């Protein structure tokens, strides 16, 4: 075999090896970003799928659920009686979703007051500690639960600064100061919909929008509607 042929063969092998390595890298990234989605248990009502999402928001996720970033603000979801830091949720298409959020964090305030109004949920009204609200004071917002593709947004009021027995690290106990927010929305067609918080709630980061707000798995995730 001539020298040129060997060179060409060498280049081809190197290119193929680089391709395989890039493939592994992309695959690993996909796994990391997607993370295993939590399949929310499905019930049926008159043949119609119904799911219950139970979520909490905490000021600091704690070393147990996030050893690398224990100070990150975060959403958590209840899975089989345990609070987990999973933010990719699998729910059925055309289903009714009843959401309960236990909000343990203090307020940060919204940069855009318009987002202080619930939208995209039944009646455009959220229940806060059993009281129906069609808006909250934007300055009192701690977080939002929003699915922009559904034009769904629910502002979550913060725990008062002087509240007693505030939660330090997650998981928080129900005896800690908190608000309970409930609302209902409906999924549509199958798809991959991101959800996020719109409040600049990342303490210590530029405009409050770095750290956990720029990292999947804390203040944002996906609704995988199947």
């Amino acid at each position: 075999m001539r020298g040129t042929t060997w060179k060409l063969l060498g280049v081809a092998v190197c290119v193929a090896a680089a391709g395989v390595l890039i493939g592994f890298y992309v695959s690993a990234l996909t796994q990391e970003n997607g993370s295993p989605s939590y399949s929310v248990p499905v019930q049926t009502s008159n043949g119609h799928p119904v799911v219950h999402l139970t979520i909490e928001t905490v000021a600091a996720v704690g070393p147990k659920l996030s050893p690398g970033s224990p100070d990150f603000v975060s959403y958590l979801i209840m899975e089989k009686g345990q609070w987990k830091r999973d933010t990719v949720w699998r729910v059925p298409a055309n289903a009714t979703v009843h959401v309960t959020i236990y909000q343990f964090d203090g307020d940060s305030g919204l940069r855009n007051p318009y987002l202080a109004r619930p939208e995209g949920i039944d009646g455009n009204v959220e229940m806060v500690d059993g009281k129906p609200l069609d808006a909250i004071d934007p300055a009192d917002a701690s977080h939002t639960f929003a699915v922009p593709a559904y034009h769904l947004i629910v502002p979550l009021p913060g725990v008062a600064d002087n509240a007693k027995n505030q939660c330090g690290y997650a998981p928080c106990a129900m005896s800690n100061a908190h608000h309970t927010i409930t609302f209902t929305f409906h999924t549509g067609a199958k798809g991959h919909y991101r959800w996020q918080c719109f409040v600049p709630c990342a303490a210590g980061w530029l405009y409050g929008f770095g750290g956990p707000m720029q990292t999947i798995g804390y203040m944002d995730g996906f609704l995988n509607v199947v």
Partner: protein
Amino acid sequence: MSAPPHTPQPGSGWTVHAKRVLVAWIVLSAVATPLVWFLLGPALPPGKGSVQAAGQVFDNTVLVAFVTPIISLLVVFFVYVLTQFRADPSAELVDGPPMRNDSTVQTTWVAVTSVAVLFLAGFGTYELLKDGAGGGQGPAPIAKVSGRNLQVQVIAQQWEFTYRYPSYGGLETSQLVLPADTTVELHVTSLDATHSFWALQLGVKADANPGEDNIAYVQTKGARSFDIHCAELCGLWHGYMYDTGHVVPASQFTAWIKQQQQVFASVAKYMPRYSTIYYPDPQRRGG
């Protein structure tokens, strides 16, 4: 000094080659240019969803049609050279003919390319100044568009666009709906990072910078939907910062505004007075 043996010399053979290339170029251009103008041109993006979008299609068609004869010449030249002047691998390697200055060719080349570039510069400038071509023109636009005018503010934030209608009491919405056959004055700004508002089928693209009022004009035509994207890498969810906007008949637009005003009422008391730019508080947790 005499030429070395076996060196080809320019002569009548070169004239033959030039004539062949010229004829092939004219034929290819005569076929390709109308195809570009009549077939490719109308299919070019962004479509004809607005006066500005249609203008962009026209501009793109003119540019592609203009460049078609130039590309045709290159293609013909390369194909001809590659097929007619292939060296025999077994022949002895010799120098080519000496290259000499030809002032006629040089003058023609400079004149033709100068005219071409000046035409394109003039054409582009005229088209840009005519109506702004759907681009952001900053806070003091040069190319203003007159007509039945509706002002709409586009507010970018991580990671969603919202819209304010100052002529309807500062109403803000999460969806962009525009009336048909209307000149819309878009004021694009941002509350945090740099974004870019891109309404694809309307031919509108304007940067959204915090503390800046970037004005773009669009003249809507008939009812239709259009895609909205952020066109500036703006953070984690930039790729998901998209939506669908709608151009609707005037009566439908009026009804939609009334409906939005009702749902907006609950938060109206918290809204800041309409302004072309905002420096929002709070940043209580920001570093």
